[in-house]
């Protein structure tokens, strides 16, 4: 189901050998409201971004934030409506890892957010040759569930989601 998914990890020639690397955002300043246990935390864009920024790119020893694949400004969230939308930007328009990266973002959100959330993960418009096809797969709940039953694919996704030492 995932086009060219598993093959790229650790194999010889990298698709995008010299990616642009971006600076990491600093730690989020803690406000008095957040310290207060009585006030429920509203999930905002920064919190979503904090969940996805450290996802590893499948090919390079860098995070999606460092490659600018994810940016806080491309995260939209509404806690009262229980919706999240994340637009991610593949580093090159023919990136064969796009579906895998999108799936990793989706899985991270599925594992971290309350069940009530509806998650939309899609490619930043105009940044990929197959964006419609990739977006359609990512939006298909049944296809995503079936793909995650594939142990090899799940392993690759978990590698992207594991914390780097």
């Amino acid at each position: 189901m995932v086009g060219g998914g598993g093959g790229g990890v650790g194999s010889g020639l990298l698709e995008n050998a010299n990616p642009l690397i971006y600076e990491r955002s600093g730690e989020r300043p803690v406000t008095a409201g957040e310290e207060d246990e009585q006030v429920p935390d509203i999930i905002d864009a920064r919190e979503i971004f904090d969940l996805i920024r450290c996802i590893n790119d499948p090919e390079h020893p860098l995070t999606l934030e460092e490659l600018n694949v994810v940016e806080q400004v491309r995260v939209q969230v509404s806690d009262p409506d229980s919706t999240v939308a994340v637009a991610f930007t593949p580093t090159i328009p023919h990136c064969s890892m796009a579906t895998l990266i999108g799936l990793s973002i989706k899985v991270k959100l599925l594992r971290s957010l309350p069940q009530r959330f509806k998650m939309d993960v899609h490619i930043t418009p105009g940044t990929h040759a197959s964006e419609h096809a990739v977006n359609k797969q990512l939006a298909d709940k049944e296809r995503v569930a079936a793909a995650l039953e594939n142990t090899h694919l799940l392993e690759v996704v978990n590698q992207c989601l594991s914390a780097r030492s």
Partner: protein
Amino acid sequence: MKDSLVLLSRVAAHPDSRCWFLAWNPAGTLLASCGGDRRIRIWGTEGDSWVCKSVLSEGHQRTVRKVAWSPCGNYLASASFDATTCIWKKHQDDFECVTTLEGHENEVKSVAWAPSGNLLATCSRDKSVWVWEVDEEDEYECVSVLNSHTQDVKHVVWHPSQELLASASYDDTVKLYREEDDDWVCFATLEGHESTVWSLAFDPSGQRLASCSDDRTVRIWRQYLPGNEQGVS
């Protein structure tokens, strides 16, 4: 007086996983559910509460996506991501897997019994729709493999009174099939939806077919006179 729904019961049906589908038996006394835990559960009432009468495990190696009762109510078919379809026979409160239909290349998405009870249809991510015939000895034989869709087929449903089959697909179309000269053929394609068509239902007379899609519309199709009404879902 305003119509409203009153919640009668809520049960945790498939632990730590999704419940993917539900089906009432023809008599309306049992409810079959299936899920990501690879099991099928049969629910019935004991007094005022709904209890699990039976758990069908050992049938599938992966998510069970849909279940369908035969018109007589004695059999249950289950479609799974493990690429097989199991046929279960009911013996009072127990179910026994009498046969496993193989052939699809990957996840089976749907299974449906024809009203006659002699035909079964399955569909899969392998883009095909299979028609199976069953005889009096519970022997199943595939009589047709239909490769009309260009993508994952999500749902199949039979016409209530004619031997006519409809399928819905990730390719955004609905296709209709019937037997012509001993061969199953696709005789019509309904286009109009702008994204995956997820499900279909014929009205009891069979004159209208409703389809729903990822494009957020429900369309109603009239036989032989293509037409549709869009409703916001």
